[in-house]
C-alpha cells in the first residue's frame, strides 16, 4: 500500500476509534462524572486551541516543530473529531439560546470553510496542472498587461497594413474588455469553458471578411485570447486557493473569542446547576 493511502487508513481508523470512545463516554460518562459536559467542553476547547496553533507553527519555520505536512494531517483529522466532540458536548441537540446558537453557527462555518479548503487543496492543484501554463500568481497582472499590449498592437497594425479597420473594430467591440482584467472568474472555477469557445467562434466568423494578411494577424490575436483565458483560469483557481484561508482563519479566531466568552458565561451562571 502506498504511503498516502496507508496514512489515510490509519488516520480514519484513529478517528473512528476516538469518535466511538467519545460517544461511549457520553452515554456512560454522565453517570460517573458530574458535570460531564464541562469535561467535553474543556476537551473541545483544548482541541480547537491546538488546531489554531497550526498557524503559529507556520510562522516559526526555523524551529524544529515537526513538518507542516504532519501538522496539517493532524489538523484535518482532529478538526473532524471536533465535530463528534461538539455533538457530544451539546448532547446531540440544537442549541436554543441566541448566544449558544451563534457559537454553534460559527463552529459550523469554521468546519465548512475548513472542509471547503481541504477539498480545494486536493482538487484545484490537479486541475491547474492538467491545464498547464504554470504561472506565479504575483506575475499574472504583468503578464496580462503584456498580453493586452500585444493584442492592441496587433489590432492597430492591421489598419495601415491593409487599409481596413475590421480587426480594430472587432477588438474594440469584442476583445478590449476581455483583455482589460481578469474575466469569467466563476465560470473558470466551475470549469465552464463556454466564454472562450464563444470568443473563438466570433474570431472564426470574422475570418470570412478578411484578406490573407488580416487572417494571419487575427490568428495571432486568437492565440493571445487563448493565453489570456489560460491566465484567467490560473488567476481564478489560485485566488481561491490563496483566499479561502482568509475566511477560515478570521472565523477561527472569532470562534475562539466567543468560546472564551462562553466559558466565562458558563462559570458565571452555573452556580446552582448540578
Amino acid at each position, binding site marked *: 500500500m502506498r*504511503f498516502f493511502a496507508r496514512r489515510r487508513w490509519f488516520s480514519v481508523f484513529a478517528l473512528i476509534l476516538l469518535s466511538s470512545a467519545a460517544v461511549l463516554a457520553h452515554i456512560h460518562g454522565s453517570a460517573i462524572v458530574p458535570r460531564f459536559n464541562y469535561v467535553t467542553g474543556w476537551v473541545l476547547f483544548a482541541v480547537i486551541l491546538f488546531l489554531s496553533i497550526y498557524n503559529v507553527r507556520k*510562522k516559526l*519555520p526555523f524551529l524544529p516543530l515537526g*513538518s507542516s505536512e504532519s*501538522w496539517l494531517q493532524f489538523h484535518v483529522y482532529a478538526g473532524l473529531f471536533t465535530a463528534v466532540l461538539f455533538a457530544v458536548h451539546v448532547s446531540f441537540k440544537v442549541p436554543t439560546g441566541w448566544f449558544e446558537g451563534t457559537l454553534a453557527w460559527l463552529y459550523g462555518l469554521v468546519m465548512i470553510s475548513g472542509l471547503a479548503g481541504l477539498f480545494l487543496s486536493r482538487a484545484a*492543484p490537479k486541475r491547474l496542472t492538467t491545464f498547464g501554463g504554470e504561472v*506565479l500568481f504575483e506575475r499574472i497582472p504583468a503578464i496580462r498587461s503584456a498580453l493586452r499590449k500585444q493584442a492592441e498592437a496587433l489590432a492597430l497594425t492591421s489598419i495601415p497594413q491593409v487599409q481596413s479597420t475590421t480587426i480594430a473594430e472587432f477588438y474594440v467591440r469584442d476583445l478590449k474588455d476581455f483583455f482589460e482584467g481578469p474575466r469569467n472568474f466563476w465560470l473558470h472555477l466551475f470549469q465552464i469553458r463556454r466564454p472562450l469557445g464563444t470568443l473563438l467562434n466570433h474570431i472564426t466568423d470574422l475570418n470570412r471578411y478578411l484578406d490573407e494578411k488580416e487572417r494571419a494577424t487575427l490568428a495571432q490575436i486568437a492565440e493571445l485570447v487563448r493565453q489570456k483565458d489560460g491566465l484567467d483560469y490560473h488567476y481564478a483557481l489560485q485566488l481561491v*486557493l490563496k483566499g479561502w484561508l482568509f475566511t477560515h482563519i478570521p472565523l477561527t479566531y472569532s470562534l475562539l473569542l466567543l468560546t472564551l466568552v462562553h466559558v466565562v458565561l458558563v462559570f458565571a451562571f452555573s452556580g446552582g446547576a448540578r
Partner: protein
Amino acid sequence: MDSTLVIVEKPQRWDARFDEQMSEADVDRLLTVPPFSVMNAEKFPRKLSVRDILYHDTSIKRYRKGEIVVRQGDYGTSAFMVMSGKVRVVLNPGLPASVLGRREPNRKGFFRSLAQLWSNAREPESFRHSQLKADARIVRQDEGDSAKVFLQDVPRILDEHKTAMIEHGEFFGEIAALSRMPRTATIFAEEDGAELLEIRWQGLRDLMRYDEALRTHIDQIYRERALATFLQSTPFFNGLAEDQRRWVVEKTEFATYGDYDWSGDYKRLAQTGTPGRADHESIIAQEGDYPDGVILIRAGFARLSQKFGHGHRTLNYLGAGQMYGFDEIAHNWRNPDSALPLQYTLRVIGYTHVLVIPTAIMETVVLPGIPERNLPPLITRKDDGAAKISKRDAASLIGPDLLEFLTENRFFNGTATMTIDLDRCTRCDDCVRACASTHNNNPRFLRHGLVSGNIMVANACMHCGDPVCMIGCPTGAIHRDAFEGQVIINPATCIGCKACFTNCPYDAIRMVEVRDEKGVIMVDQEMKPIIKATKCDLCVEQMGGPACERACPHGALARMNLNDLDAFAKWLKR
C-alpha cells in the same frame, strides 16, 4: 524555405588562449627546462606541437609571499609546475576553514533560531558588518574582477602546521585537473617571486597523450594517490587481497571524455530550447561491441541508452561510483559458449572521467573472488535479441518522459534538487515564506521552473554532485560545507566577481547589492555598490534541515537526490 547557407567559423581548439600575455620568448624559455626540454617533438602531431600547446594552454604566474595558489576542497581545471622559488603544501589536517575563505560551520541553537522571529532585517540583503568581515589571518588584494588572497603570517603558519616543500620541476594539482576532483591540499608561495607554470587541463591531456614520460609520471601519481583508494570503496573490488588490488590498479586505464566546460555549452543550448540530446553526445562504449573492460564512472555523468526504433532510448544515467559492462563480462565469464556483446550504449553527458578495468583482469583477478550469490543474474534475451529490461532501466521506475527530462536538463547533477509535485502543490508559497524567514527575509529560490508532467524542478540550488559553480572562485568563498557537503557561499569573502553566477548552468545563483543593518546600500571606494553572490544554502545553519521542505503542508515539495532514482521513484509513487 530559405536555402542560403550561413557560413560561420568552426570553433577551434585554440580559439581562446589560456593567457594572452604568454609570449614566444616565454615558450622558448619553457622549452629549455625539463620536462619540456626532453620531450620528443617528433612524437607530437604537426598541428599540436609542444610549442603550440605551451603557447596556447599555459601561463607563467608569479606569486608573492603567502599568496595562496590552490585551496584544499576547491575544484580546478588546471595543474601547476614549480619553475622557481619556494612553494609549500600544507599537510593534513590543513588550514582552518576561515583561513581558506570559508564559513565555519555554525548551526543556530534554539534561542538564536527563535530570535529570527523579530531580528530579521526589514530591507533585503542586509548584513551586519561583522558578517562581512573575513579572517584577519588572510588579506585580499583585488585585481580587476579577480582577487589574490595572502596568508598574513607565513612563519606562524609554518610553525603551527605541517608543511612540505614542492621542488622545482614538480607538478601539483594534476589529479584534480584531470579527474575533476576537489583539491586535496592547500598550496602557497613561501617567498616573493615564486614562479609557477599553470597548465589548463586540455594542454595537460595533450602533453600526456604524446609524451610517454609525463604520461607515466602522472599515471603513477594517479594510481598511487587516487585509484587505490577509489577501488577500495567500490563494490566487487573492496574484497580483493592487497596484491590483487595492486595488480588491478596497475592494469587499470583511465580517460576523460567530453568537455569540462559543458556548463557553458549547456546554457547556450538551453537558451535556444535544445538542451542535451543523446544524438549530440559522444560515445564511450557502444551497444553490440565486445566488452573489453568494466567501465567505472569516477566523475561526471554518462547516459545509458539502448537502440529503440531508429533512435536511442535513455534507460538511466550513471554517476560517480557506478559501473558499466560488468553484467556482460560476468555473464560471458560464466557462459563462455554463449558470450554476449555490450547490451547498452554509454554516452558522455557533459564530461565523464572513467576508469577501465580490462576484461582479462576482471576474469582472472576480480570475478573468481566474488561469491556466486553476489554476481549479477545472467542476461536473458527477448525474442528480438535485445536484453530484457534490467534493474538498470530507470525509465520503468519513473517513466521515460521524466527520465529524458531529467537527463536533457542535466538535473541528475542535483543532490538536493527542489522537486515539486504540482498535483499536490496549492501554490500557497509557504515554502517561499519559510525560506525568507530563515534567510533574514530573503527568499533564496524561485518557486518556478521547468515542468514535466506534474513534476516541477524549481529554480533553487541543487547542490550539485559536479559543482561547476565552484570552479574559478578566486577567494574560496563558494565551497562545500565541511560536515554535510552542501554548497554554500561565505559572504565575508565573496568579492562579487560573478564566476559562480556565470558558471552555474541552472541559473540558481543571484548577484545582489548588499545593505548594512540600517538598510543603506554598501559601496566601495569608487562608490560602486558591493555585490555578493547568494543562493540556497539548504538551511545549513538552521535546526531541522531545509525549511522549504518542512514548510510544505501538502508534502508536495522535496529536496531529492536525483542520483538515487529509487528514492525518487518511491517519492513519486508515495
